[in-house]
């Protein structure tokens, strides 16, 4: 990486002539250690990360063994290090050794002295593509050199320079969703940054004979910047404002539901939403759908149908629901147990817009009884749970098996539907 010497070598030679004791010490050190470095031009180098354990670091070489030795006792986070070797964010101003913005503090990190150089490893890895200004001041060595500051601007290669991330799916994915929809998942092809969906997602109502008139429905979503990303940042959860979804309450009476049955909408996702590399999306995404009547009934297990596989096969067990259940929660809220409580391992799939859940077991089914196990936190995209609608009046609340009911671990509150597997 870039290096400048500013004639330090000439001045150093002059300094050595003025300081005979220093020359003696230097000769002694050179004689005593064959590998000891000889002083040369100051060289600033950025070393890319060699492994996960060895992050990128900066080295300053060209120092004599005596100079390095004089620094070796200094603690790695000693407050005097930045005066000698200062790393700051930005390009700097280049040639004169002055930094672009001296008011900003130095990058924090650990200093070390190797056999041949001073090294600086930042507390957090250097950002790819970001310029850093490195300034080494020889006059701040334990035995000062009367030389100008040596400065260099360094940067690691940028990781991504072209937009490539796209929206891959929106759930619920069906053409019609209930007007009291509470939750939408937006899935991406690669990890996204930290930006919250509120800034980039719009609910657009379509009207006119060909749907050509567009009107943005403002205030449709929960006004929350909380982290609604999945752990890997490939899925974002968008909540409609429950204050508007629920009937009869103040925001609902004031503005109505964001979705109205019979109306057509587009969920418009702007390309300015940036991914984890700071790149915008490759393209705008528009998910068109229609709002249907509200679904405000609890999930009823009695409405489910189980297609049983045959014993001795690895046939797929399919459970059909009369309406879409929640795409995210389904994956972890349904399972199958053998009669002795052993969990059946296998591959889970969701089909037909989350109206079918299936399990293909790793091992063949045995003749006998099994239980389909539904956790009480299972919801549909409207927030309705098993035996309990999202909106419940006080006098209707009889069920004390709600998620998190005090006194029992939630796993013990699961619902179980028994079924038998017989011969083909």
């Amino acid at each position, binding site marked *: 990486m870039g290096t400048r010497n500013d004639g330090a070598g000439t001045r150093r030679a002059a300094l050595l002539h003025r300081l005979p004791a220093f020359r003696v010490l230097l000769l002694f050190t050179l004689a005593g250690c064959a590998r000891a470095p000889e002083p040369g031009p100051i060289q600033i180098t950025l070393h890319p990360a060699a492994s996960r354990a060895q992050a990128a670091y900066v080295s300053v070489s060209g120092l004599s063994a005596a100079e390095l030795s004089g620094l070796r006792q200094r603690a790695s986070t000693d407050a005097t290090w930045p005066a000698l070797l200062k790393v700051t*964010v930005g390009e700097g101003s280049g040639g004169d050794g002055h930094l672009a913005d001296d008011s*900003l503090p*130095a*990058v*924090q990190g650990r200093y070390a002295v190797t056999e041949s150089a001073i090294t600086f490893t*930042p*507390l*957090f890895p*250097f*950002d790819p593509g*970001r310029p*850093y200004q490195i300034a080494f001041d020889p006059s701040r060595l334990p035995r000062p050199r009367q030389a100008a500051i040596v400065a260099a601007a360094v940067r690691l290669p940028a990781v991504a320079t072209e937009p490539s991330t796209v929206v891959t799916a929106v759930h619920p994915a069906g053409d019609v969703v209930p007007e009291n929809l*509470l939750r939408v998942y937006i899935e991406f092809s690669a990890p996204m*940054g*930290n930006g919250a969906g509120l800034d980039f997602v719009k609910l657009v109502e379509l009207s006119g004979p060909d749907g050509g008139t567009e009107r943005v429905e403002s*205030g449709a979503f929960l*006004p*929350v910047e*909380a*982290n609604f*990303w*999945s752990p*890997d*940042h*490939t899925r974002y*959860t968008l*909540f409609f404002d*429950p*204050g508007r979804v*629920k009937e*009869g*309450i*103040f*925001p609902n009476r004031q503005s109505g539901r964001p979705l109205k049955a019979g109306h057509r909408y587009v969920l418009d996702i702007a390309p300015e939403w*940036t991914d*984890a590399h700071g790149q915008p999306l490759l393209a705008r995404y528009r998910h068109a759908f229609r709002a249907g009547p509200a679904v405000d009934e609890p999930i009823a297990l009695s409405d489910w149908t189980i297609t049983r596989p045959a014993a001795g096969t690895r046939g797929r067990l399919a459970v059909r629901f009369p309406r879409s259940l929640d795409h*995210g*929660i389904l*994956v*972890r*809220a349904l*399972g199958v147990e053998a009669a002795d409580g052993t969990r059946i*391992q296998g591959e889970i799939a969701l089909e037909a817009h989350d109206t079918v859940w299936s399990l293909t077991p790793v091992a063949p089914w045995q003749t006998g009884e099994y239980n389909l196990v539904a*956790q009480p*936190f299972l*919801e549909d995209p409207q*927030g309705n749970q098993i035996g309990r609608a999202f*909106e*419940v009046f*006080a006098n209707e*609340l009889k069920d004390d098996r*709600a*998620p*998190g*009911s*005090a*006194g029992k671990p*939630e*796993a013990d509150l*699961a619902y179980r539907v028994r079924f038998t597997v017989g011969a083909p």
Partner: protein
Amino acid sequence: MRSSVKIAAVLAFVALTAYLPTVATVSTRVAAAAGPELQSIGPLSFGPAGVLYAADSLAGKIYALDLGTQATGGAPGTANVANITQKIAAMLGTDALQVNVTDLAVDARTHNSFVAIMRGQGPDARPALLRVDGAGKITTIDTSALQFTSVDLPNLPAANAQGRNQRAQAITQVKYANGRVWASGLSNEEFASKLWSVAYPFAKADAGTSVEIYHGNHQQLETRAPMYAFIPYSIGNEPYVIGAYLCTPLVKFPVSALKPASGKPYRGTTIGEFGAGSRPIDMILYKKNGKEFLLMANTTRGVMKIPTEGFGTAAPITMPVTSETGGVPFEKVPSMARVQQLDLLDATHSVVLAGSNAGGLDLQAVELP
């Protein structure tokens, strides 16, 4: 710049700390270790003897950190720092867009402020903790050197390990009161509200107590509104939790009713409604001119000052409120604008992180209203 602790007081504190129990010694059930491997750092809160509780939402843990000597040595107090996010970004080797402030907490011993940061974007974001002292000096805390204990929050069961579990939780607040650490949170899947509590020193997490409330503005029984901010509070001699929910009811729960063994969901008492379209950020209690107040910062409705004298006797809201607000009286504090984080600095001042004209956040000591 202001500093609120006299040097003599600091020296007295330094002398006392030698005799105070530390995290390492008071924890009889979970052994203290060094170097917590934080995946994220979220809400912060100080407990007795300078223990710093730090939530790690990604790992589903709450840490009790012993800051040791890294809590001391700075000038007492907290000085104003303009555009602190830019300065922190520079120290962490990046720009302000990569710095996401997750909380602010004041160490009552030194009145220094601690700022929790997530540095970077997406799944690669990493936690950082910094201290700001009475001279405005910002110091990174080397968390790998800290003694700590931790507790895992109870996770919802996954019925099938094969499914791709994309659930994440966000811990919205952590506080210590009466021998227990309390934490509120929400998830990116089920629209659930959880108020957990666990005895400290940590043994193992309770199963978690979920609290149901009447949302007076909503008429219906609001079973699953996320709680965003809360504060332990005593009415008479009885310990309570005062919680603030989305859009923004204020609800009180007697701690005695939140016992995990009670067997039934508990309904809190809604005593105030502060208007829709906002979420609470932080709450602090303070006294001024002999009266006690609750100061609450909100995302879109600014800072509100609420006298606490009516908390014990306020009529519960169970019927629809016909206007935006109702219940216990409050007044808005227009002088505290764009507040994103709030904590109590001392008897007369709060400390806030507020939107800066330069685009980042300013750290400011603000006189209590």
